[in-house]
């Protein structure tokens, strides 16, 4: 199999153990040299609130600011990788250029995280405008490839101004864009939920979404993103 990202052919090493135990052999998606460009946030000390690299105790300064406004928010976020040039290029190709295949790039990690997950998984929705432009929701794409069952309970009713084209101050001021779809309103009540997005930047999106879900009776919320 060729690497999904760099397209170079990669060698598959099949271990005797896998053969003898009849384990299903899944082709690796990324080659080693592409994986080496990713900085994992699973093996270093991170801030519990946003999963960024943070070696001190407690929440990072950004999360403390959030805590002032959201004293009851649980602050539990998991991100897979640090935001860097590799992630940037991937987002560029997957989300903006629309190469749907690239949603498979983190399949294994997503599967591991959501393995036997009982909580309700809800992806962050995209605006009507973005949907028209891209044709797919990039977060749902990630979950589809990983075969993770999710509930598209949130809908985006904002104008669809791209968050990535705003600076921090502007992003913090953006109004609540989400609401819970009527048909799913009953499903939310009293549930533990995992919210999923592609990238955690300021946290604004997640807090808006969490706000909206708590208002509709969600019991607890934690969040997950590919990158931070």
């Amino acid at each position: 199999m060729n690497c999904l990202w760099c397209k170079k052919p990669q060698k598959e090493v099949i271990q005797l153990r896998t053969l003898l135990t009849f384990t299903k052999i899944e082709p690796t998606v990324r080659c080693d040299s592409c994986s080496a460009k990713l900085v994992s946030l699973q093996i270093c000390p991170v801030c519990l609130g946003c999963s960024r690299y943070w070696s001190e105790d407690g929440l990072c300064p950004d999360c403390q600011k959030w805590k002032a406004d959201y004293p009851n928010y649980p602050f539990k976020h998991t991100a897979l990788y640090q935001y860097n040039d590799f992630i940037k290029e991937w987002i560029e190709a997957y989300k903006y250029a629309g190469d749907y295949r690239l949603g498979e790039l983190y399949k294994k990690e997503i599967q591991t995280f959501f393995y036997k997950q009982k909580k309700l998984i809800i992806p962050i929705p995209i605006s009507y405008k973005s949907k028209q432009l891209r044709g797919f929701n990039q977060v749902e794409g990630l979950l589809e490839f990983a075969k993770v069952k999710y509930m598209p309970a949130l809908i985006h009713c904002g104008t669809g101004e791209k968050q990535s084209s705003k600076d921090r101050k502007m992003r913090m001021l953006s109004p609540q864009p989400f609401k819970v779809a009527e048909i799913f309103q009953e499903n939310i009540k009293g549930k533990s939920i995992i919210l999923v997005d592609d990238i955690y930047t300021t946290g604004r999106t997640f807090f808006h979404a969490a706000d909206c879900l708590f208002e509709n009776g969600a019991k607890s919320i934690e969040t997950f993103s590919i990158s931070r």
Partner: protein
Amino acid sequence: MDLFLMGRELVQSELNEGLPEEWEGTSSLGFIEIGKQITCRRCGANQPQDRQSAPCNCGDHCFYCIRCLQMGKIKRCSLLYALTEKNRFSPVKEPVLTWQGKLSVQQERASKEIESTIKAAQTRLIWAVAGAGKTEMLFKGIEWALREGKRICIASPRTDVCLELAPRLKSAFQDVEQLTLYGDMEESYRYTQLVIATTHQLMRFKEAFDVLIIDEIDAFPFDTDKGLQFAAQKAKKTDGSLIYLSATPNKKMRQDIAQKKLTASILPARYHGYALPEPKAMWAGDWRNAIIKRQKKAVIYKEINHLIQAHRRFLVFVPNIELMVNFSAYLKEIFPQCSFTSVSSEDEQRKKKVESMRDETYQFMLTTTILERGVTFRDIDVLVIGAEDRTFTEAALIQIAGRAGRHRDFPTGEVLFLHHGQTKALKSAIRQIKKMNRLARERGLLINQ
């Protein structure tokens, strides 16, 4: 808007304004579907593995072309807008050709052949050795076409070739509007009679050019990319003329010439009239081991030392980047007094380093096949390490050998292929260079015989 789209085929997002209300062009779906055969309208990809299905607003069964994705996504439900080329150019100012130079005897002959090919709307290959002076031979034919109000495109698979061609054409046709199209160009598109473009950019044209000239036809990725070849055919008018330029046409083309399926002009001599430097093959033992295990006494180091002692400036070609980095580190240790650098496709300072090599800041330079063509240094020797490696194809070796002795004042240079067992490619590269020299001699094109 009319002129913006004329001769082109674009998706919605590439139209900088919306479509005008009155509009005489056509719009068609992204893929041509005839029975089970599905073909991308822009790049001609028609295999099932060339398409990726993906959720889309249009419904359930949408897919997009992954072959030409880098030019922007084309979905099954995309619309492509096209407008027939009508050659809306104002007459060119005389004199059209402002170039004052003089052609050599063989250039003169090829120039005439090119002109008549263009006039007769035919196809021709110009097989000219590295340093024959291909660009100048095109001028007469282009001049005629410009005067006739025809639209002309000079394309190449390589951006650096396009960027080098553009100023030369600008000075040859000073009063003619021209535009250079390539991947990350800053200028925006405008309608011009003379277009210089990478072969990728040809995908955005449809039956636009009366004359299409493709330089370095055998260069990567055009040689293997069917999409680009499709795009080139599509960009040309059906009754247009096609000129291929190459120093190393592939086997298929050489066969076509032999079978008279393809008309060709063969130019075996360089513009300065000196023979091509003939490469020498030299056995270098296990050169890979010599790099990895730092064997200072190995042939490769001896040869480099030899050139350094002789105060020569030279290029060292290495099969791949990892080896190059490793090799470069050791060379720094054993030749600390020497100024040199290494350059590869992954090097962001590539352009700057090549410039410095040209200014003679460095004595030598390590490189991969990235510098095999398109670059000229004044007075250099060439060393290929591991010439039997599969990255060094016959064409690559001929091109590499062609880096030496390009300048009129320094028409000679040493070319050495260091190998660990000769390959077919290596032998036939040397054979072909010798054959060209023999041909040049027979035709009386060399001045030093």
